[in-house]
């Protein structure tokens, strides 16, 4: 029996670590949902709660909420692991940084997605979402959430070693996120106007797959630079 774990085991242990840190209590689980509910509320109040208006933009609000729910917290853990020296430990270990980062983004995806899926009925009520949309919404949240995590980790890594990183981050990340949000909203819109959402869905999946492959490498490359300062 080898004393050395396989990559899969290391991968799972990383996800476990993120869950330990971020999913400690019920607060953590509910907070993402509450955050999104509040964002939605803020928007609805900002826009004026008229049904026609709301129906026009509910998909947009949902996606922007999703983005705002994932990226800032993802950024914070990466920043924290950088500052407390945990990334130093990871880089001086036999585990490839790419694996660490892939598991981090997957963990984040799960951490955000699970509570959201559970609370989906709530959003359907709040945003008056058409019921025929539900299966599509489920898929697009799943896939889109993953790509948001993957892009989020690139963005955080980009600014980790930079001088005024926290200020730069949103400028760098929003342009990268735009396609995802368009495809995601496109799916819902297509269903709403009774067209096929499949092409948008395939585009979203394709994009996510690309990021799945490149994001760990890019972020690892960037983190090595940040650590070498």
């Amino acid at each position, binding site marked *: 029996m080898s004393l*050395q774990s396989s990559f899969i085991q290391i991968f799972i242990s990383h996800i476990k670590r993120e869950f330990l840190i971020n999913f400690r209590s019920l607060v953590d689980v509910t907070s993402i949902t509450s955050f999104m509910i509040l964002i939605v509320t803020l928007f609805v109040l900002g826009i004026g709660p008229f049904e026609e208006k709301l129906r026009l933009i509910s998909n947009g609000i949902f996606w922007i909420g999703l983005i705002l729910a994932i990226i800032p917290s993802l950024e914070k853990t990466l920043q924290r692991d950088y500052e*407390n*020296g945990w990334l130093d430990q990871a880089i001086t*270990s036999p585990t490839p940084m790419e694996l660490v980062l892939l598991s981090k983004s997957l963990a984040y995806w799960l951490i955000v997605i699970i509570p959201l899926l559970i609370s989906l009925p709530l959003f359907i009520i709040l945003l008056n979402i058409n019921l025929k949309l539900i299966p599509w919404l489920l898929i697009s949240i799943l896939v889109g959430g993953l790509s948001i995590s993957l892009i989020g980790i690139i963005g955080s890594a980009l600014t980790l070693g930079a001088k005024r990183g926290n200020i730069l981050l949103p400028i760098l990340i929003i342009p990268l996120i735009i396609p995802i949000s368009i495809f995601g909203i496109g799916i819902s819109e297509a269903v709403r106007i009774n067209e096929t959402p499949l092409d948008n869905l395939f585009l979203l999946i394709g994009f996510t797959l690309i990021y799945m492959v490149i994001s760990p490498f890019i972020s690892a490359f960037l983190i090595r630079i940040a650590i070498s300062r």
Partner: protein
Amino acid sequence: MFYLKDVTIKRGLKTVFYNWSAKIENSKVTIISGKNGVGKSTLLRAIAGMIPIEKGIVKNNNNEIFKDQIKWGQNLIYIDSKNGLSKDLTVLENLKTWSEMRGWKTSNDDIQKALDSVEMLNHKNLYISQCSEGLKKRAALSRLYLSLLFNVEFWLLDEPTNELDQKSVILFNKLIQRFLENKGTVLLVCHELKLFDFNYELLNLDLLKK
């Protein structure tokens, strides 16, 4: 034999080492000393592979260590003042996730022993955010015990004794002695040489860098 030959290491815009050479003996403790800002931590981080070596060669037993980062990572433990502990995890969880990250399959028994080796067993369920500075340091140093079980060859320690009380310094000395028995090599940065009761080589950067 571990040696650095004509290395140039930069930190930011500052050239900290320029065409600098040094030898470090394997299976011994080498204490790196020197005044503040001379480059002790930089040297350690460079050897650990975190700061790139702009020019020059670093070899361990005639292998260029940075050829295979993964293998070098297997052989090395690096601990500095940042400790690398998540403050939202307990001492025990930190040690466990750390060893899992390295791909080590450790039994619960090993973990317990590791914590015991720095007398942290009583504190194992404290969150790091609840630990005093010295307890944090000890939690970080508990990794050293684990590494004894997994054939790690190098310990790179940056001021490991800083917040330790007298008892813990003794425990730390013991760990080093066990490591030396395993033929391990220790590179240790410290300002206070009187704390140690083992033989060591001294690498004083103040003298060497002239």
